[in-house]
């Protein structure tokens, strides 16, 4: 009996995704370790442990909690970008424009906070709408002109970047290319913390952004699996023609999906910049990686909102961990390298599932054959 339940356990999709993700992580870390060995064999073991330990390198619990807070602060926007990509992926759309939607959100949030001196709630809404509009543009092009969302998304990433650079030049520090500190100009634009900072040794960057991002993930899970809208979105994604046949407005659904995707990425940016943790550099000439890292997080999370919560945290964990490496020996990008390996291995998740299912089936078959009569008897006995 115990054996049977374990078979059932292994054949559950969620369990399989988790196993596959863990396997990807292990292989990714091993390859990362090999890379560290090649760069400098002497410190490699220590380095990989440093990456994994991240904030645990601090001896006191208080310091560790504080830096756990920092990791979470950056994990929240990553999660939002991952959710953006994932939600669109359910509708059959690859929202690589999440990076640009994130940029638009950042621009709108900071402009409202610094230039217009708006309270945080308005800044959040502005980020949501700005990201959403970037999404809608892609959606309209896709629906009505059949422009591939990857192409239009990537182009908008750059349009977004330079527009935001221009927009925020008015609110930058005189001596640096960075925007002025939100906390110093407009305290009301900083997201409230509701006392959560106390849990994290008074880390002032810990705000409601973190629980909000998790709540939004759960909300998306509910929408996708339990609502009419989720039913339509997924049908449109899997079978566009069947969706049209059944009278779903598939064009409208594509636009709404991309709006939601854009809004999620835009909010993600506000979740970071309205904590004051980071400042925008108006001279930056590459699109922030947050949107692209979201792709990694969503695939590592098995394309499931709940799985993505953990995946986002993990990716941010090793990225933050990478910053503790001795910069004289190892480039801090080693964490990005490991994440990249993991993303690459994400294709492997599917392969792993197929192999596992094949193996389970073969085992079932072997187990079933001799006692066919026996199992029939059991059934009879139950009746």
């Amino acid at each position: 009996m115990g054996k049977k339940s374990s078979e059932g356990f292994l054949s559950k999709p969620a369990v399989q995704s988790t196993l596959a993700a863990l396997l990807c992580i292990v292989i990714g870390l091993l390859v990362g370790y090999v890379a560290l060995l090649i760069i400098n064999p002497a410190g490699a073991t220590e380095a990989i442990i440093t990456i994994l330990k991240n904030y645990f390198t601090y001896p006191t619990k208080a310091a560790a909690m504080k830096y756990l807070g920092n990791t979470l602060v950056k994990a929240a926007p990553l999660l939002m970008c991952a959710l953006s990509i994932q939600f669109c992926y359910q509708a059959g759309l690859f929202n690589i424009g999440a990076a640009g939607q994130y940029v638009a959100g950042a621009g709108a949030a900071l402009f409202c906070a610094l230039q217009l001196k708006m309270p945080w709630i308005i800044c959040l809404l502005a980020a949501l709408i700005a990201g959403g509009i970037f999404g809608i543009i892609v959606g309209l092009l896709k629906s009505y002109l059949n422009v591939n969302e990857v192409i239009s998304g990537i182009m908008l990433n750059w349009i977004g970047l330079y527009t935001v650079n221009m927009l925020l030049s008015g609110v930058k520090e005189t001596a640096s290319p960075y925007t002025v500190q939100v906390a110093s100009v407009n305290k009301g634009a900083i997201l409230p913390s509701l006392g959560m900072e106390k849990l994290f040794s008074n880390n002032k960057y810990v705000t409601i952004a973190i629980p909000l991002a998790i709540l939004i993930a759960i909300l998306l899970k509910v929408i996708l699996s339990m609502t009419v809208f989720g039913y339509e979105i997924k049908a449109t994604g899997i079978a566009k023609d069947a969706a049209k046949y059944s009278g779903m407005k598939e064009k409208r659904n594509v636009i709404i999906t991309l709006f939601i995707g854009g809004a999620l990425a835009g909010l993600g940016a506000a979740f970071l910049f309205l904590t004051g943790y980071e400042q925008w550099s108006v001279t930056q000439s590459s699109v922030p990686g947050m949107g692209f890292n979201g792709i990694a997080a969503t695939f590592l999370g098995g394309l499931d909102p709940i799985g993505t919560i953990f995946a986002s945290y993990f990716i941010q964990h090793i990225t933050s961990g990478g910053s503790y490496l001795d910069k004289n020996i190892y480039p801090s990008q080693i964490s990005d390298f490991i994440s990249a390996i993991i993303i690459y291995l994400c294709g492997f998740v599917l392969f792993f599932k197929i192999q596992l299912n094949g193996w389970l089936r073969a085992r079932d078959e072997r187990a079933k054959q001799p006692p066919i009569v026996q199992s029939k008897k059991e059934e009879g006995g139950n009746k």
Partner: protein
Amino acid sequence: MAGNSEYAIEMLNITKRFPGIIANDNVTVQLKKGEIHALLGENGAGKSTLMSVLFGLYQAEEGIIKKDGVEVKINNPNDANDLGIGMVHQHFKLVQCFSVLDNIILGDETTKHGILQKDEARKKVMALSDKYGLKVDPDAKIEDITVGMQQRTEILKMLYRDNEILIFDEPTAVLTPAEIDELMEIMKNLAKEGKSILFISHKLAEIMAVADRCSVLRRGKYIGTVNIADTNQDELSRMMVGRDVQLVATKEDKEPGKVILHVENMTVPSKLHHNNAVKNVSFDVREGEIVCIAGIDGNGQTELVYGLSGLENCTSGKITLSGKDITHASIRERSTSGMSHIPEDRHKHGLVMDYSLAYNLVLQRYFEPEFSTKAGFLKKGAINSYADKLIEQYDIRSSQGAATIARSMSGGNQQKAIIAREIDKNPDLLIAVQPTRGLDVGAIEYIHKQLIAQRDAGHAVLLVSLELEEVMSISDRILVMYEGELVGEFNPKTTTPEELGLYMAGAKRKEIGA
């Protein structure tokens, strides 16, 4: 001794199990040299599994395969190829933008210092083409040629590789009647030249016409092998289905009632070319009648239905359903106004293949209060119990009931699911497009009964069919479509397939009033 066996290929006592199902249960098929051997069975009877075992895609748990009397192991398709076994798949495996010749030599190219030697290949292909009467244009691109010529390309592919054992998997499903006749001739020629042919089909007439012997499978079990000369269609269908089947549907005479669907001067543009696919078409469908649109594939039937169902916009004309103008109505509005549509392509339009059966069964109704709350949540309990009801009522068979993923169901049961969904909406008008295409006798009988039941219940039925036999047996009125126009109206009781054929081919036409 080895080469002297009477049989080209023998599959002896093959048993292949899948979880929860025995796909082949002790099946024996022996293919004589130079014969056409039909393999007959309903959908899900295990024909494809058996051929996959022969092709090395699956390994049988029990049983052996012999070639020329010698036991062989076939572990993968390459082994099968080395043994001279070739297959024409139901869905062709051709590169669309390559020429016929390129497709034939693909994977078996003759090269000299890495450079293609196409001239030799061309000579060989043309020689084969002449020898077996397989007319192809070697330089035409696959995307430009007819389905019949694509199939001949597939056959040439097998011959080019000197295959001796040819498997045809439901080769007639995609062909027009004339092309079917041609294929039958080709198969006979091949057999005459010493090739051994396995012909997988569930079309009895074709098997009677072309095969020497026939082996029948039913639910994975081997039923028997008969000589075609000593049998008839009734016996074959009994062997296949396990009971007597009514090959011709019967129905009572019925006086049609008021007009349900009224179409006036409808014109629908074509996606393929700049002409209109449907030109100025007018007709009515009344309560309690089955009106059938007959015609050869590609004469505008598909676009006509797209225009009626709203999948495509008509550029002019007027459509009225039960007195309501629906010319500009959305697909959803038409559906909720009493139109049901069994689509031509059940995989593309009819089902969300990766959704469960339950989700597919509510595809036209999920938004109704019965299945969703005002807040927009799906009522999963209601959806599942409704699905269970339809599964029971329409005898939809699947491995895991309502939770089964549509993709994993057999073609016949997928179609049953669509029919259950569309009929259970209790529509005023049921549009059925080739509802029996690719299905076996048992399923066809079932579907015909359902269509006639709709008619008898006083609903209007518009049937689009390419099968003249079907047209003649179940319709009350026949409209023939040719090049986007309706060219004749007939009463099935007073017309003949030959007369219809003349109109379908465009040789004759008459004016019809709406």
